[in-house]
């Protein structure tokens, strides 16, 4: 889990939704192979932060650099960059009209122009890896939430991304299905995948993260290793947040 050269760099990023200042001068650097968990109260801007990294949300001020290059404007160059950044959504967003295997192979075949047979083989291997190889020919609606989210992770991994973004990947799941998704994420983290994870799963933050980012009111309030952050939060806001979620 070496934290080598920076892969994702945000410099003084600002974003407004109308009058709402959702990202307020956020600067952040994520090294290759680093796992950064972003936590904070709802409305603090953490999901928006995650979505700016592949420009699903454009920003108003500041710069975002991925792998040494600033994010390009909408167009082919941006599409290429997005293909190198996997994204997993809270609501899975599997393509409803395609089977699980087709979901996983669409990107490799259409974006990377891989041969369908090769993409299929790799897709099946990925589905096997996330434990749902036997669901390959079903449609998303036929799967449980946990299975759908694992399929969505496989779909993102099929592009062989340089980094993975997780936007509250377990928030829409039944409690008993959270574990199976976190297991997949933990194994990814231990294999050296660069990850930015927005989550409320403090257990995952504790054992899988290299760093914990705490956000509140659009600002990046704390940035510390998990042991330090959970044992000894520096800011009043973080202490307050942790006391609320850890007392139950």
């Amino acid at each position, binding site marked *: 889990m070496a934290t080598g050269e920076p892969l994702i760099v945000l410099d003084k990023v600002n974003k407004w939704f109308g009058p709402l200042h959702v990202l307020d001068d956020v600067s952040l650097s994520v090294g290759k192979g680093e796992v950064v968990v972003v936590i904070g109260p709802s409305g603090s801007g953490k999901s928006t932060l995650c979505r700016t990294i592949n420009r699903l949300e454009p920003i108003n001020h500041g710069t975002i650099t991925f792998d040494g290059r600033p994010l390009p404007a909408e167009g082919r160059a941006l599409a290429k960059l997005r*293909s190198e*950044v996997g*994204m997993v959504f809270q609501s899975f*967003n599997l393509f*409803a009209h395609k089977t699980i295997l087709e979901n996983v192979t*669409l*990107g490799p075949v259409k974006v990377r122009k891989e041969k369908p047979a090769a993409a299929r083989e790799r897709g099946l291997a990925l589905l096997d890896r996330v434990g749902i190889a036997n669901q390959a020919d079903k449609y998303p*609606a036929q799967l449980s939430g946990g299975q759908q989210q694992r399929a969505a992770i496989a779909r993102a991994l099929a592009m062989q991304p340089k980094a993975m973004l997780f936007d509250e990947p377990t928030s829409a799941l039944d409690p008993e299905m959270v574990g199976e998704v976190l297991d997949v994420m933990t194994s990814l983290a231990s294999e050296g995948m660069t990850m930015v994870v927005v989550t409320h799963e403090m257990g995952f933050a504790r054992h899988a993260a290299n760093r914990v980012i705490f956000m509140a009111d659009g600002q990046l309030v704390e940035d510390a290793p998990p042991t330090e952050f959970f044992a000894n939060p520096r800011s009043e806001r973080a202490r307050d947040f942790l006391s609320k979620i850890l007392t139950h």
Partner: protein
Amino acid sequence: MSVLIDKFDVFAGGFWLTLQICVLAAIGALILGAVVAVLRISPVPPLRAVGTAYVNVFRNMPLTVVMFFAAFGLPALGSNADFLRVPVLDSLFSRLGTDLPYFRFALIALVLYTAAFVCEALRSGVNAVPPGQAEAARSLGLTFGQNLRHVVLPQSWKASVVPLGSVIIAMIKNSALIGFFGVVGDLSQTADQLTSAEGYAFIPVAIGISIGYLIMTVPLGALLDRLEKRQAVAR
């Protein structure tokens, strides 16, 4: 009611001409409407503006006025719409190739007007697809065109079929206007011909032409219902 039997050939001829212009106008409006819809949802602001302007103009103008512009504006510009004299098509649809341009003018007006509604029907289907679908496709690196082709349009079709059908049915009924803009012998103009020129009673003639329109619209509606049911099962 004997007019229905005595003048069956006149009714049949009117039916045939109305069917011809409706088939051509439906094809034209579906193609043009799809193009305008793609413009309206394009990520490029100037293209979106063109699409929106098109819809605002043609959806908000009475068809009669569009017909006036086609029938009087085009000749004023020196055009007889000869570009519609497509070699193979004009042997199938004979009026396309005649020297009198009014069939072509009426066709242009119907296409321009109906395309605005086709665009909105297609767009309502696109809007019915959850935004997360397009977002997931974008995050995989699919381009705008790939996103439409492989993710959004296949899912939007289901929600578009019914409004699209209503638009085409409305277009068939709107085609009744063309007789007032120089097109001789369509279903509606047949009524005028039979009643004012040949003195037949109006009501039997009106019943005759109503049957003609219903023969076109009712089966179309039934077909759409079937399509909708089949799509519902496919989910």
